[in-house]
């Protein structure tokens, strides 16, 4: 850089940018500019429409699947509960039926003397 004439350089650069502006003539649009633009708009619209429709289908399918899974998981569990009761009940029932001879009730006759027993 030439420190002494920086102002001069700045001015020359500004002039060069000005000349560049004039030298860059804006290109003329072709006759197909508008038809192609509308084609692109329509194809983008079609794409976004079909994408939206697909997305809506996926969401609906997901909701349906969720509901089906919920029903599937809920139904067997309720059957178990209504048929057999709680885990403790089931355990007690099976215990009673299998070992009833071991746990037979001891009867005490409170009227008799201890010697009779």
């Amino acid at each position, binding site marked *: 850089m030439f420190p002494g004439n920086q102002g001069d350089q700045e001015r020359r650069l500004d002039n060069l940018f000005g000349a560049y502006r004039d030298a860059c003539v804006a290109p003329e649009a072709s006759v197909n*500019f508008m038809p192609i633009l509308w084609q692109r708009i329509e194809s983008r619209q079609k794409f976004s429409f079909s994408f939206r429709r697909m997305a809506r289908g996926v969401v609906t399918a997901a909701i349906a699947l969720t509901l089906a899974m919920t029903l599937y998981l809920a139904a067997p569990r309720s059957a178990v509960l209504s048929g057999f009761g709680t885990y403790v009940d089931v355990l007690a029932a099976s215990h009673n039926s299998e070992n009833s001879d071991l746990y037979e009730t001891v009867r005490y006759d409170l009227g008799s003397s201890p010697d009779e027993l």
Partner: protein
Amino acid sequence: MLVEFDVIKRAQSGDGAAFNEVVLAYRKRILGTIARLIARPEDVEDVAQEVFLRLYFSLDQLRTAEVFEPWLYRLTVNASYDYLRKQRRRMESRMSDLSEQQVVMADAAAGGKVDQERQEQKRIRETVDALLGAVSEDDRILLTLKEVEGLSLKELEKIYRVNENALKVRLFRARQRVLKAFGATARQTEGKGSVKTG
């Protein structure tokens, strides 16, 4: 504004004729800006169509008339950035090539076989493109918008959505880099001239 806000409002509500009117009003300006930003004439129209395509699909977000032009510029700058990113194209001209090109152009002009004015314009375009190649792509676009398109700092503020001071700093640094490259070119040209004449 090159069109009434009423026309834009009609375009917003889906009136195709109104949208056509907006495109026709701004088309030339947008083509010119893109031509300067991407420096590749064969792709200018394609990028311009992308700008208007984006405009069409985002027009419903526009609320006030004042922001329309900066907004359209923003779409233009973004579409140009996207194009440049896709192409991964850097300015091919380097400072070392510049003098060579100038010599070739000078020889052609001296031959008197080509239109001098057109050659001069081409030389200027190549010189500035090469100078702007000395800065980053971001700074090149910013400098082009400021120095060539003649946008004010206020307009740039709206386009870039950054404060004026940050823009001033960026512009100053970019301009300094271009000035440095400009000085080097001038020295090189003078050097060649002195060798030739001496």
